């Protein structure tokens, strides 16, 4: 809080452009995200206290399998949030993924991979549209992606007429549901966990170890300064939306594999993704966040819900807690930004 703010600080709603050595940045990130890992450990301990089998590999891996879709959503959402935006369309994109896959594949394993390619194509398109409307037409991303949510939901409902058709064959469902048997040490290793680890590593790499990731952070932290220093803000943000959409399609494939096609898929996931990212230490408004933190945040959220189930709390409590998390996060972000001036 300086008495005479310099020009960049006056115009900076959040941190100044991210600078400093890799080590400094890493330390900052760790300090910001340590709490969520502590939280995750506490939650796992509480679950294990209630159901001791939870710590055994098959059960814990099954937990990771069920959490995988949300973790992937959180990864995608983090790209958008560190860039200073929101993506509310990811839940309905998951719905589209599952419903379209079931209808087009219709139980024929030969079609699976082509349809998957199509689904990622749809994700790419959705991300591009979100990006274009937000950056060129200057519509706040909250509104843009909310509109996209309604468009996707409406289109799906119209297409299915209320009752989805078709089915997902085993070679589609294998990612979300099946496992490698007799894996050394771990026993049954679900494919979903492998997908999770691989895509999670990719996400960590992109955000924290590439120039592109750094540009995303700086865009969210200080869009004006970033633009002035040569970052193509529109392109960076659009890329973030595309990444979010692609991760949402992947999450949909895992989720659809797990639950098979049903009338309501993907509902409410977008808010869970945002809650997860926020829990993981990301700053709503952009400029700060850790991919590892977001993933831990997602796992914490799933663990929290499981714990609430075990204690016998109804669904409404879960929604209320999510709401509280988001409100607290917004309040924190507001407090921080006022402190920075």
């Amino acid at each position: 809080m300086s008495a005479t703010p310099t020009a960049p600080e006056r115009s900076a709603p959040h941190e100044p452009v991210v600078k400093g050595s890799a080590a400094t940045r890493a330390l900052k990130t760790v300090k910001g995200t340590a709490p969520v890992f502590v939280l995750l450990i506490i939650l796992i301990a509480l679950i294990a206290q209630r159901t001791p089998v939870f710590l055994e590999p098959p059960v814990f891996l099954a937990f990771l399998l069920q959490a995988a879709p949300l973790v992937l959503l959180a990864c995608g959402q983090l790209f958008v949030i560190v860039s200073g935006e929101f993506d509310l369309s990811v839940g309905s994109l998951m719905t589209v993924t599952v419903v379209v896959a079931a209808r087009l594949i219709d139980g024929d394993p030969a079609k699976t991979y082509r349809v998957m390619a199509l689904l990622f194509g749809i994700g790419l398109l959705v991300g591009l549209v979100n990006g274009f409307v937000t950056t060129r037409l200057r519509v706040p991303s909250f509104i843009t992606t909310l509109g996209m949510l309604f468009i996707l939901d409406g289109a799906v409902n119209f297409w299915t007429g209320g009752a989805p058709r078709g089915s997902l064959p085993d070679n589609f469902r294998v990612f979300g549901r099946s496992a490698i048997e007799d894996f050394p040490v771990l026993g049954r290793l679900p494919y979903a966990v492998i997908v999770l680890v691989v895509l999670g590593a990719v996400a960590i790499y992109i955000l924290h170890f590439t120039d592109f990731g750094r540009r995303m952070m700086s865009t969210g932290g200080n869009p004006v300064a970033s633009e002035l220093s040569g970052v193509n803000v529109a392109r960076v943000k659009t890329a973030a939306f595309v990444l979010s959409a692609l991760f949402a399609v992947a999450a949909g494939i895992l989720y659809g594999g797990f639950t098979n096609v049903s009338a309501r898929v993907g509902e409410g996931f977008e808010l869970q993704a945002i809650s997860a990212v926020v829990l993981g230490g990301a700053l709503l408004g952009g400029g700060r966040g850790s991919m590892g933190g977001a993933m831990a945040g997602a796992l914490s959220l799933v663990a929290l819900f499981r714990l609430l189930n075990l204690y016998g709390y109804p669904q409404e409590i879960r929604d209320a807690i999510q709401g509280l998390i988001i409100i607290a996060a917004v309040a924190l972000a507001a407090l921080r930004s006022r402190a920075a001036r």
Partner: protein
Amino acid sequence: MRVGRAGLLYLFIALSLIAAACGGSDDDNGNGGGAGEEGSGTGEHSEFFDQAQFEEQLAQRDIEPEGPEGEPWLQAIEPEMVDTSEFATDAPWNVCFSNAAVDNPWRVVGFETMNAEVDAQSDIAEFTVVDAEANDEKQISDIQDLARGDCDVLIVSPNTTEALTPAVEQACESVPVIVFDRGVNTDCPTTFIHPIGGYAFGADAAEFLVDNVDSGGNILALRILPGVDVLETRWSAGKEIFDDSELSVVGVEFTEGDAARVKSIVSDYIQRFGTIDGVWMDAGATSVAAAEAFEDNGMEVPPITGEDQNDFLTKWEEDGLTALAPTYPTYQWRTAVLAATQILSGEEVPKEWVLPQPKIDESTLGEYVAPDMPPLFYALCGCQEMDGFPERWTE
């Protein structure tokens, strides 16, 4: 400072969890975890439970219905007929329908079947349909509009019972009214069409488990939501039968009809209790998910109940499950139209048209399973012999 503020968030969550751990929650309906591993039992009866209706419905299952053989949508159990000659009018007819909604696959199949029946009736020239989109106020207004119009007969599928009663009473003054599916609290309608009911549904499922699960076995009951009249009756009947049996109900959980939640709940129970010997469900949309949850955990699927959705029937047949499908037949949507034609022809109809409510078991599964139909197609639509089958129900 910074960590302190973030810390507030985590402190809050930690406090909530500690509160949760100490307080716990065992509300009266018996859902949620119990303290020990004996399980939660079945809890208290809900305020909806009506002993007399329960016994009546259970008895109705065994009464031979009257009506044409092989056409259950035209059969009635112990009907008391009413005279409708005052409503007789010449064709062509204008039939009106106030629909609560088409917001779930059961209603989608039912509505399609109803339309097929209308098309098959050459005397019906006009079929006016208004969709209330699950909104009571809208449906009240819809019914008022239709009653003012030139309908020869008004069919109503009410969104809720209490709220729609006055509107139906008012409509009765201008036009003969047929009510089906959910009822209303007035007997002014010319006929009220419904299958036997929820108690019979829940009882069929529970009795199946009593017959197929060894004494002392662990039963998991999965319910969609609390407070929904048609679902509360199903569980009440199940509860009555389980309470009288040697089976141990270890959990009664609400799933909100969400497949992922079903899988998660079933897995939790398998981990907590080691084995679950039977699964009772109050509807069939997520029965496949429940069955798969056992497979995901590397276990055999125990005796399980569902409904006449095609995906459940298909899995039952393909995997050789031990299962039962009680039904709430969609063919009642046909009956509504047929009743309309009878009333407008001046023929007698039952005052309360209680339709048979078949259950699909091992012996009849083959007649109903349909590999080429969509997963959420309901086999008891009474539509298999109709014109346009299967295309109408697959597009």
